[in-house]
């Protein structure tokens, strides 16, 4: 520190050291809380909009939604699911009639965890849409699970019973068959496996078709997904 001759030569007291740190911490805390409070509404709105768009995309014909969780042996609608609580989204049409579930699912892919959302019609036992929310699959190969429109379209009317099977491209014959992607078989199979596993995990918990919880809450805040 020879370049700085302006600093006090005497060692400052401990009190001064503690005070400096405390003041720095305080000012920093105030600044952080300020930015947090001022950006929070935008961030929450962005997230809610993203979720809503994804749900409407995987469930055609849906214009309202609510979060559903499994509590005390049955599926109930909640305004705000707890952290770490498994949640599905119920999709409802204009007349507030139940259409289907949008199910979040995640599991290991080729490179890292794949997180996705798929639309499920319990009456027809069909998957009607699939949207990848997060993945780090290989660009140009594995990322076809969301960039390849043909592959995504495979999930638009797919029978989920007894389970979805990924087959070699061009050999799909059954309603529960998915054409895998040439060059990205592992990623395609991972998507199928994630959906199958999630379906199996929820199968017992979802109510019988026809007895889904009705849409609750005011129409005004139905769309927010909260």
């Amino acid at each position: 520190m020879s370049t700085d001759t302006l600093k006090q030569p005497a060692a400052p007291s401990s009190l001064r050291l503690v005070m400096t740190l405390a003041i720095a911490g305080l000012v920093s805390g105030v600044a952080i809380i300020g930015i947090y409070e001022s950006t929070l509404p935008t961030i929450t709105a962005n997230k809610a909009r993203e979720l809503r768009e994804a749900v409407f995309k995987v469930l055609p014909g849906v214009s309202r939604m609510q979060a559903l969780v499994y509590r005390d042996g049955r599926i109930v609608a909640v305004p705000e699911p707890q952290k770490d609580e498994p949640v599905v989204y119920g999709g409802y049409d204009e007349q507030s009639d139940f259409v289907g579930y949008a199910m979040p699912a995640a599991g290991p892919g080729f490179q890292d965890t794949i997180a996705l959302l798929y639309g499920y019609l319990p009456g027809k036992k069909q998957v009607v849409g699939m949207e990848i929310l997060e993945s780090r699959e290989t660009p140009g190969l594995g990322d076809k699970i969301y960039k390849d429109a043909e592959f995504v379209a495979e999930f638009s009317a797919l029978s989920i019973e007894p389970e979805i099977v990924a087959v070699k491209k061009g050999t799909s014959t059954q309603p529960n068959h998915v054409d895998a992607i040439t060059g990205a078989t592992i990623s395609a199979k991972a998507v199928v496996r994630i959906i199958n596993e999630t379906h199996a995990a929820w199968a017992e918990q979802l109510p019988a078709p026809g007895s889904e919880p009705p849409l609750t809450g005011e129409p005004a805040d139905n769309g927010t997904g909260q």
Partner: protein
Amino acid sequence: MDNLPWIFVSALLVNNFVLTYFLGLCPFLGVSNSLATSARLGLATTFVMLVTAVCAWVLNTYVLIHAPYLRLICFIVVIASTVQFIEMLIKKLSPALFRAMGIFLPLITTNCAILGLAIFATNRGYGFVEGIVYALGAGIGFTLAMVLLAGLREESELSNIPKLIQGTAMNLIIAGVLSMAFMGFAGLFSSS
């Protein structure tokens, strides 16, 4: 949804901290000129990562749910002070252990791999056990990458390499080849 073997192998090989996330590059390139030093630094890093995972879990569970915006500052301050405290403790209790890895501890605290571990574990929503397993995988993976590079560098000192490419440029290219080799581990858990 993630299970423990997947978390471990993912952090160890498929998503190796150094070779796919580029975390902890400074010690990776700076210290990796001798095998013995690299192994010891790797050991010390694994240890600090375990401590970090515990700290991050405690902070996430008890403090940060009330104040998520303080995450970054809390992580830095708490991890740095915990490591410093442990360093003093080791110095008192086991001078031999301190000589083996103590000198590295202050260096490691400022390593981005440590902060990265805390942030990744939080983003992935890992619980206590998952966090520990993740830290273990990441630490051993870091050690592995360090030791591999150090071995290659020790070898390369015996060969006649153009002066121009010696140093960081060559180390980066070696690291690139290593990273390419590690890409072969992708898909370990999904090709069922």
